[in-house]
């Protein structure tokens, strides 16, 4: 689950051209997260391209064991994100798919090299900011108690440390600890419906631990985790503010009060 090697010297590139993979979840539900990602990257001097033919990283099919389908999706991604620019993604799990899962998926395939090339260019957003661009502190202000839910797919990558470094440097932000932080939230893709009982139990436990720390907001690098946690919390009648780390960084720049900023999933309920 390694991030791109430092041979991709992003900092040296004068225009800092990057490609944005918004992720299918942000495409469908969380446009503000993708927006915040663009704004954060532009603040750092990047020129952000959004290849319009993009769809998905292939992870759902890969994890479900439908590898032929996953390869189809990933080949499309290789085509869409052709080039040399870093591909920045507001999702640790999608980044891990491209840099790790894809290697397993294509190990015996003729186009393994092209897939690997994309993998070396794929960065989760905060990892890109800290290790790619060398930025280790963040300006502005974000007042509030923040519980950072480190997504499982960021294990073994630079993301956890990157988020910690950036958020702890934000003025007014109080980083709170909570119990059993290493335990998964229970989303797991199709697991969330195929193993609904266990998924719910895991999520409820995670909510118990998070809320016991009395945070003002829960922050993650992955909307999949937040979709699940926030969805459970709403159904259980427990108030929970959740933001993607991109939104926190964007809001800090705007120096808006944390409690007044938009909640990532503020929405009318779907379905009856």
């Amino acid at each position, binding site marked *: 689950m390694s991030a791109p090697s430092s041979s991709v010297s992003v900092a040296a590139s004068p225009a800092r051209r990057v490609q944005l993979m918004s992720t299918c979840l942000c*495409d469908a539900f969380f446009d503000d997260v993708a927006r915040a990602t663009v704004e954060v990257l532009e603040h750092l001097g990047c020129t952000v391209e959004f290849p319009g033919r993009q769809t998905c990283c292939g992870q759902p099919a890969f994890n*479900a064991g439908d590898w032929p389908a996953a390869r189809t999706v990933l080949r499309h991604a290789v085509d869409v994100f052709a080039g040399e620019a870093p591909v920045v993604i507001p999702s640790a799990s999608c980044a891990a798919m491209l840099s790790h899962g894809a290697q397993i998926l294509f190990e015996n395939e003729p186009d393994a090299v092209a897939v690997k090339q994309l993998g070396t260019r794929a960065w989760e957003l905060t990892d890109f900011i800290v290790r790619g661009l060398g930025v280790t502190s963040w300006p502005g202000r974000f007042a509030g108690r923040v519980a950072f839910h480190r997504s499982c797919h960021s294990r073994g990558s630079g993301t956890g440390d990157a988020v910690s470094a950036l958020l702890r440097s934000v003025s007014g932000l109080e980083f709170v600890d909570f119990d059993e932080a290493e335990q998964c939230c*229970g989303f797991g893709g199709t697991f969330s419906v195929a193993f*609904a009982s266990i998924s719910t139990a895991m999520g409820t436990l995670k909510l118990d631990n998070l809320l016991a720390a009395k945070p003002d907001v829960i922050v993650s690098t992955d909307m999949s985790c937040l979709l699940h946690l926030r969805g*459970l919390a709403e159904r259980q009648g427990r108030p929970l503010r959740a933001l993607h780390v991109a939104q926190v960084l964007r809001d800090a720049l705007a120096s808006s009060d944390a409690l007044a900023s938009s909640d990532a999933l503020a*929405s009318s309920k779907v379905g009856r």
Partner: protein
Amino acid sequence: MKREPIDQFAAEQSDERRTSVRLGSKAGHEKRTQVLHEDYADVDLLRKLAGQIKQHTLEHLDSYLEKAEEELRARGVKVHFALDAEAACQSVLDILQARGAKRLVKTKTMVSEEIELLPFLERHGVECFETDLGEFIVQLDADRPSHIVKPILHKNRREIARTFEQKGLGTYDDTPEVITRRAREFLRRKYLEADVGLSGANFVSAESGRLVLVTNEGNSRFCLAAPRCHIAVVGIEKLVPDDRSLSLFLNLLARSATGQRLSVYTEFICGARSPDAPDGPEEMHVIFLDNGRTEVLGTEYREILRCLRCGACLNVCPVYRQASGHAYRSVYPGPVGAVLSPLLAGKRFLELADLPKASTLCGACVEVCPVDIPIPDLLVRLRNRGKQEGAPSGATPSLGGFAKLASMPTAWKAALGMGKLVNHMPRAVQPGPLRAWQGERDLPAWRGGAFRSWFRKRGKKA
């Protein structure tokens, strides 16, 4: 709503049982983590080193196994090989029958459960007793262990006390000290009357042929002190190259399994007792078992054979904590079992093809594995194999349609737009997965296309 079998089992479990398993596992994980970080600056370095040593051994297994066999034979140990469970059971029975032996005591070894040895021996008139306290209680109850290291993680003292009373071990008393004392007294008689002591082995050193047994209760020592014959049944994957590597493995194993620096008893056995010693076996047999291991060795799943059976992955696994060991319908549960059990099932792979699905691929297991087995990678490979071999999808939604959509940008964008309909649809008529999701969770409003039009409106290329 349809559920995968492991999820069904978890849902139907009593709260009491779920809590016992969850808290017991959590405690085990915390002890492991505390002692490892207290003792070592770089735990990951040790895990990776141990993993490499095991991997190397597996990749040269023929020469290491041959060396171990040579060493053992040179010391008068009788070495046997068993292709499968049936052959191993028959081997054990043959040894017993050659000695006219009718009573057997066994120390903790998962392999004996794997090959279903005790029921086989009992059918052939051999009286058998488990001597590890947890396994003894499981035997009395005709139950199955639910954890590799802590077999009765799922039981409480009241259940145990009732069993003891039913089986004539005294009137109801659920004090742990009394339970333990009763087992001590009962089993002591059995050790002293037994003809054969049966063990497994945690490690076999190829260099010296030594079998290493790691225990805490003294039952293993008794099985090797009182009876006159020792039989060890050992999976071929238990080999390590040399005695020297044992210092690394022993340090990692006990800490990973129970948070101890060393287990109470570490036995290094490479032969029967010397002729003039009054105690101990006069004859020692080692049966090396295949039972599907060579098949695994030839696949991309071979890393699972590194497993030391420490149970650390079970302790940290959030799915295991909710489901408990019995949910896995196999001798080996938890993360390691989700890989190993379907593989060792051989031709019956499809019966256990749902096990690899019982995971969010969170990777907590890899972080605690003393031999660095990449379990999530193996799980996802097994999911691929399951699909290719036609495993039923069960309660898992098919993603074929999604994948098709994801390779057709125009259709994708259209779906993003049309998805808004979901915001107004009654749940009952929504697509399956969305409906299933909302069994327990709310769904946010669909906003497909909103980001793309924002980006376009800024005048950037979209």
